[in-house]
């Protein structure tokens, strides 16, 4: 069978870019922990933490795991089960939280 070209496959970044991403990840982690201790933000703690966590997840997956540079097929193989897991998470909480409370 003839090999298909995957135009989205690009060269991976170099060490300098990896270090820049790691610095961003470290800063986000510091912000996460700082927010945890700021009483004034306690009302918005959950949404802020969820957004920051999702951002860290995306940075690692896109840059360190190279999903930004590799074939979309890899992204699909990973994100479809991830979406199913998230759906299971939401469904379980929606179903059983009501039963328990």
């Amino acid at each position, binding site marked *: 069978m003839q090999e298909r070209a995957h135009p989205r496959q*690009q060269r991976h970044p170099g*060490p300098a870019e990896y270090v820049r991403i790691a610095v961003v*990840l470290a800063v986000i982690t510091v912000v996460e*922990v700082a927010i*945890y201790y700021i009483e004034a933000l306690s009302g918005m703690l959950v949404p802020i933490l969820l957004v920051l966590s999702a951002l860290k997840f995306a940075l690692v997956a896109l840059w*360190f*795991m190279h999903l930004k540079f590799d074939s979309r*097929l890899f992204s699909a193989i990973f994100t*479809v089960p991830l979406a199913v897991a*998230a759906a299971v998470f939401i469904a379980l909480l929606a179903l059983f939280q009501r039963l328990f409370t």
Partner: protein
Amino acid sequence: MEHGGTIGHAAEHATSTGLDNRKLLMWAFLGSDCLFFGPLISTYMLFRGKSLTGPYPHEVFDIPYTSVSAFVLLMSSLTMVLALAAIQRGDQRGLRIWLVATALLGSVFVGGQVYEFTTFVHEGLTLSVNVFGTSFFVLTGFHGAHVTVGVLILFSLLGASMRGQLRREDSLRVELAGLYWHFVDVVWIVIFTLVYLIPAPLPAVLH
């Protein structure tokens, strides 16, 4: 300088997708592992604040300590990707340095988790004392087991490099180990936020 390993690998094995089957398989495994950790995290969240007896999360969690652990694992993702960059440019010394650094950081994380578990047990939190203990130890224990497997993989790669069996053209082996390593890192990113940072509601018995 070329850092791209994927383009070269596809050429090594002619496949219908044009992609290396080993890398495709690793992504499929990681997808299946999402379905493994998803229900474990869901179960933990479901039972939050439902324990009838203590110890409760707010009584045992040490956020500064766990934050340092989370930071250590996050930085191990950097050293892992630097190991990949090193082998892709044929730098064997750099590969070994970054592999050792990653394995050490992973070991520090696992050691920290063992210490944390031991402390919790001394404070009365066991696997069977309440639903918090059960769901917490199962979730974080399975994650710790994943990290331990990752450390073993890293040491096996280091051994292969020492024996001269890990050359530049074998960089896919490091890339696959890296994918697994980064995955355990992203799982911890989720666990750190949902389990540790988002405060659990106080159990009804404490109201």
